[in-house]
């Protein structure tokens, strides 16, 4: 038989088609879905998140001398050294796209677990799909408290939620009042999806319980072309503390519009989101020295726990940015999930879920200021202590709670 050109092409095609199969058979791998906004208005978050997850995967798959679960070995020892492979999906901040992408990850990409999603509104639909297919889902960086109260069996969150965060803020207010500062009135400013709504509900309740007067509770449409009307109302209220729950775009526009309308807030204590993003401080940081944001991560921890600084360097080499509240939680999300899969010694959804339920990771083995990672019956980790950070001289300093603080808060804002 002579080999003509067509045979060669066909043969090549057949070999190419079989190659992935062969590769899969040789090195077994664990496929985890990661679902984030990779395009659209919050694409920047997703693109940074990819780097954070890649950093975590690198730590798991390669040998590193850190006291972090799975760092010291290569791959997952419980599954014969299987490597973690991430499949990224783009939900464009749209809950319906999130639903479709989660379904695609599970049915087409055969992922054994999913981590996501930045926007809490998208976490709602993604976690419902995961529940239906018995695939464990970790909310790496969603903070809406209602997420873990929906009776889902496959939902887990290692990080704090907005009630815990808001409680930290009000504890801080109480402490400042004891020191003789005047904090009587609050103005809430929040976007109109589940993140902003849940956050403001938590804050309204805490304000009522602890005797603070909410003089303005302004809900606005996310990604508005203008916030003039909203800022006018904030200005008229002129509360002792302005408490925004805003994503990056609206956060930048809020501060710019405040400047344009001649309104300087007495104090700002922000519910994270846009107020932990470098982009916001690059754009308007000079206008808000002393702004306080809640967080669950602080680079100050590197002084006590050197691996935090080293892992931050790994992330910075990839992204050009320091870990912030989001990228650090994303990193931990994958570590917690991979640790559970490793202990489950299986990629079966129910077995991974059992392992997640049994998770008990000491705080020292994380990059967070948390006491430990241990989930309650609703999948929430109540041992994740939030911190308050103050933006001062171009960087964040931990100012509360007292056990984590490295500096006194500057209050009122300069």
């Amino acid at each position, binding site marked *: 038989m002579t080999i003509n050109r067509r045979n060669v092409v066909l043969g090549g095609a057949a070999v190419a088609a079989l190659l992935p199969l062969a590769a899969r058979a040789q090195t077994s791998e664990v496929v985890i879905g990661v679902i984030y906004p990779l395009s659209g208005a919050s694409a920047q978050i997703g693109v940074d998140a990819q780097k954070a997850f890649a950093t975590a995967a690198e730590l798991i798959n390669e040998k590193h001398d850190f006291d972090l679960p799975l760092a010291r070995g290569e791959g997952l020892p419980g599954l014969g050294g299987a490597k973690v492979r991430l499949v990224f999906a783009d939900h464009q901040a749209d809950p319906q796209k999130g639903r479709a992408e989660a379904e695609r990850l599970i049915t087409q990409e055969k992922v054994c677990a999913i981590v996501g999603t930045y926007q809490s509104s998208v976490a709602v639909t993604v976690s419902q799909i995961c529940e239906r297919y018995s695939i464990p889902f970790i909310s790496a960086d969603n903070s809406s408290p209602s997420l873990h109260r929906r009776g889902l069996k496959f939902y887990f969150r290692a990080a704090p939620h907005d009630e815990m965060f808001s409680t930290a803020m009000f504890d801080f207010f109480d402490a400042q009042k004891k020191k003789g500062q005047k904090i009587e009135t609050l103005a809430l400013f929040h976007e109109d999806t589940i993140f902003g709504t849940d956050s403001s509900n938590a804050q309204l309740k805490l304000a009522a319980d602890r005797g603070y007067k909410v003089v303005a509770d302004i*809900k*606005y449409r996310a990604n508005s072309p203008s916030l003039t*009307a909203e800022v006018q109302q904030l200005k008229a209220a002129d509360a002792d503390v302005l408490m925004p729950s805003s994503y990056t775009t609206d956060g930048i526009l809020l501060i710019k519009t405040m400047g*344009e309308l001649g309104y300087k807030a007495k104090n700002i204590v922000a519910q994270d989101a846009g107020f932990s993003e470098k982009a916001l401080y690059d754009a308007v940081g000079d206008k808000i020295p002393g702004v306080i944001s809640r967080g669950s991560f602080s680079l100050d921890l590197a002084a006590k726990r050197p691996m935090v600084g080293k892992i931050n360097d790994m992330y910075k080499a990839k992204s050009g940015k320091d870990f912030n509240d989001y990228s650090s939680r994303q990193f931990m999300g994958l570590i917690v999930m991979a640790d559970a899969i490793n202990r489950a010694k299986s990629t079966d959804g129910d077995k991974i879920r059992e392992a997640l339920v049994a998770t008990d990771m000491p705080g020292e083995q994380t990059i967070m200021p948390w006491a430990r990672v241990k989930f309650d019956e609703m999948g929430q980790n109540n041992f994740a202590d939030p911190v308050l950070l103050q933006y001062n001289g171009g960087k964040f300093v931990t100012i509360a709670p007292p056990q984590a603080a490295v500096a006194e808060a500057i209050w009122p804002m300069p």
Partner: protein
Amino acid sequence: MTTATIIQSLASGLLMGLLYGLIAVGLALIFGLMDVTNFAHGEFLMLAMYISFFLFAFFAIDPLLAAPLVAAAMFVFGAVIYLVVVRFAMRAKTNIGMVQIFTTFGLAILMRGLAQYFFTPDYRSITQSWLGGKTISLGGVFLPVPQLVGALVSIAAFGALYFFIKKTDFGRALEATREDAGAVALVGIDKNKVFALGWGLGGALVGLAGAIMAMFFYIYPDVGASFALIAYVTVALGGFGSVFGAFAGGIIVGLVEASTALLLPPSLKSVGIYAVYLLVVFIRPRGLFGSI
């Protein structure tokens, strides 16, 4: 609610409205000229903002000085888009409306994708400019200087455009082509040239708007989307194809948005705009100043 609050709202609404008008007029012009809705209009605005940003970042040119440069660059861009893309879409034998929609819509997605790839999705802003962050206070009413200058530029641009269309040969050719593209060919006017210049002019106008907006708004690949939506409403309100309609429509949208926010919770402020839009569609479908 005090008098100062009301005046402040209306003043802010008027300034924003004049800018909405400037953003929308290019869309109205192109539609009036050749019945093509440019669904990539928001992306034209995005590109203009990025050009202003890069002129500032690399050459330290203030956005105010850069405005004519941005307008010129966007003129070229608009004309090239017509000659390279839209001209061919117009040759479709069947379903020409659909082909045009998909062409400009596809262009929008492509431009967004390229912007995210080359410019990264990071939020940019021009932190230091002559006018940025400056505000004039008149008896408790605050007028941000960039928006104020933007409003003046908008009025000047509309004045120049009016003069251009009514008094120059090319303007008359533009009007004539819009009325009967077949007949102008008989008197020796090159239709393609007129269309290309129309697209260029549309691009230049949105370029001007982009340079002004770069002074006070953040810049990222999707920034055009929310402004484009308002531009479509503005054009539909003012009347498709009417340049003056875009001007009036912009002011109406700005004022309605501001007054809705006074009466209703701010999260519902766009409800007013769409309510007025619906009203116009019911009562006068061709828009307030539409001639079609």
